[in-house]
């Protein structure tokens, strides 16, 4: 797969079809893959990677990149294409300036998942069909890819590649996903338990803003938290408001726009399961207002910008869904 | 307003001030001819604090409890409930227990459902 991706990128530049390529390159460590813009084929061949650690969703970068001169090629995994469509719906991406290459994905891996398997000092990972060959300082070991998957990829909702100009790999289908299981588990708890859970999680937050900065939905020209006119501006965690409610506001702002790509949780240095807040919104919207997948198509009206005359009243929450 | 007036309103849960004096209760009452005071008068007497008079009247026992007045009252005053409350007030006023638990064994009878005795005890014992 890696070679096909790199060859495609190089040929797009060489043929002049695109002036830049948005892809991934290795960071300080092999698993520390970062998004990168390449401008010549040589750069691509030397630096570009497409390995099981290319979790980063590249669609967000197209907001800025598609405003620049010339066409940019981008490689998008299935879940990234949802963000790509959603951002187009919001008029954020100039589609004609983008050449979208869909890359089928078998789930991305996570160094933490490897560590949990007891693999320390990992120096390289190679793909081999359904397995991974892991080289560590101490040994070489073959493990199944499934074991190394990032948690979010276990509940992958779709392998469909939406709105791509060409595909590498096969077109996929929507998958049956148990992605709401964890939300349901929390819902089943008592309020006290839920409170304890979230207090435990959110008090770890260091307000690094990584979740916001990586989120394709959080792509405002200026974030309300950076805007002195919003009344809630605060860059550091100086006032309690932010520490307290930053995550609620953030979740609310992306409600109906979040495609559930899971980048927020992936990048959180404190390992807060932030995606659960967004998923709760998605689950509620599905239940209250009918199924909706942000970025799933170009036409459906986002639930936060629509209504029906017989929507449930807010008292459904106050009184409890079970009428408690 | 006398204690009994409050008590009767409390027992019945009826607010006699809702009455607009239309008389539909009386017009509807099948026991009219046997009554000393008629349903709308019951309501008025409770309203004006004349409950003792009502309690002394035999008229309260002529109400059949058919609830036609309750059904037809446009203002949901429920005169029959008021009358029943006056009757209860009379029982309670008489103070002492009209029935004591130790009487029960004597009353037991194969013909009589035990539940009737229990109900009677509830109704006829003090403070019930």
């Amino acid at each position, binding site marked *: 797969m890696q070679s096909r991706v790199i060859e495609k990128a190089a040929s797009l530049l060489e043929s002049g079809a695109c002036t830049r390529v948005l892809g991934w390159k290795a960071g300080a460590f092999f698993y520390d893959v970062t998004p990168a813009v390449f401008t010549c084929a040589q750069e691509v061949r030397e630096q570009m990677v497409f390995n099981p650690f290319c979790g980063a969703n590249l669609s967000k970068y197209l907001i800025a990149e598609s405003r620049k001169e010339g066409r940019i090629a981008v490689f998008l995994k299935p879940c990234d294409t949802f963000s790509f469509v959603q951002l187009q719906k919001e008029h954020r991406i100039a589609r004609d300036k983008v050449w979208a290459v869909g890359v089928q994905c078998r789930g991305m891996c996570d160094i933490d998942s490897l560590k949990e398997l007891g693999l320390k000092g990992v120096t390289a990972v190679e793909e081999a069909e359904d397995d991974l060959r892991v080289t560590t300082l101490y040994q070489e070991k073959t493990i199944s890819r499934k074991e190394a998957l990032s948690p979010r990829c276990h509940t992958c909702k779709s392998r469909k590649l939406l709105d791509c100009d060409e595909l590498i790999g096969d077109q996929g289908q929507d998958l049956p996903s148990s992605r709401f299981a964890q*939300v349901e588990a*929390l*819902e089943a708890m008592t*309020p*006290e*338990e*839920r*409170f*304890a*859970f*979230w*207090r*435990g999680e*959110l*008090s*770890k937050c260091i307000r690094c803003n990584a979740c916001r900065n990586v989120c394709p939905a959080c792509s405002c020209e200026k974030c*309300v938290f950076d805007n002195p006119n919003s*009344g*809630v501006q605060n860059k550091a965690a100086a006032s*309690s*408001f932010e*520490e*307290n*409610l930053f995550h*609620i*506001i953030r*979740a*609310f702002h992306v*409600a109906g726009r979040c495609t559930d790509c899971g980048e927020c949780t992936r990048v959180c240095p404190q390992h807060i399961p932030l995606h659960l*807040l967004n998923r*709760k*919104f998605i689950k*509620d*919207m599905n239940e*209250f*207002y009918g199924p909706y997948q942000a970025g799933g198509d170009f036409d459906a009206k986002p*639930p*936060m*910008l629509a*209504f*029906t*005359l017989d*929507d*449930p*009243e*807010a*008292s*459904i*929450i*106050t009184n*409890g869904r079970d009428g408690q | 307003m006398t204690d009994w007036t409050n008590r009767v309103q409390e027992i019945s849960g009826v607010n006699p001030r809702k009455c607009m004096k239309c008389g539909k209760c009386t017009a509807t009452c099948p026991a009219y001819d046997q009554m000393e005071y008629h349903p709308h008068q019951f309501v008025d007497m409770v309203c004006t604090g004349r409950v003792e008079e009502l309690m002394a009247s035999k008229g309260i026992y002529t109400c059949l409890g058919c609830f036609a007045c309750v059904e037809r009252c446009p203002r949901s005053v429920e005169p029959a409930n008021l009358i029943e409350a006056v009757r209860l007030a009379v029982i309670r006023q008489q103070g002492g227990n009209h029935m004591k638990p130790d009487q029960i064994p004597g009353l037991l009878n194969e013909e009589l459902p035990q539940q009737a005795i229990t109900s009677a005890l509830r109704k006829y014992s003090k403070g019930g």
Partner: protein
Amino acid sequence: MQVNETFTPTIVAFCCNWCSYAGADLSGTNRLQYPANVKIIRIPCSCRLNPMFILRAFQRGADGVILCGCHPGDCHYTTGNYYARRRMTLLFSLLDFMGIERERTRVEWVSAAEGAKFAATMNDFTQTITRLGPNRRLEDLRCKVE
């Protein structure tokens, strides 16, 4: 449940200008009492209520926040309260999901003719909040781990 007798909650009521604020005025005109704890903020429409305002109120010490708007279908701006309904439903659900007491927030539709309903709602809501006690959880979410 122990009730703190001395606790007087702070309650912020956001009222839409056309129905609920007028309903609040009507309950005043009719001298219908409700607790002084309730302070009303006038907004043009229930759809003007940004979740940020609610969270800010809690953060600054409010113990309960209630939004009052026109009945669905009666919005002065036709559709505002329908959006407000969705937003508040989802916000309250998320707060509940985070373990915040679900009775701390409420939406009630009060028309300009419902002065009595306004007063009754505020009495009931104040009672509920008094029973719940001071709002701690929203603040506590940021607390250092014990």
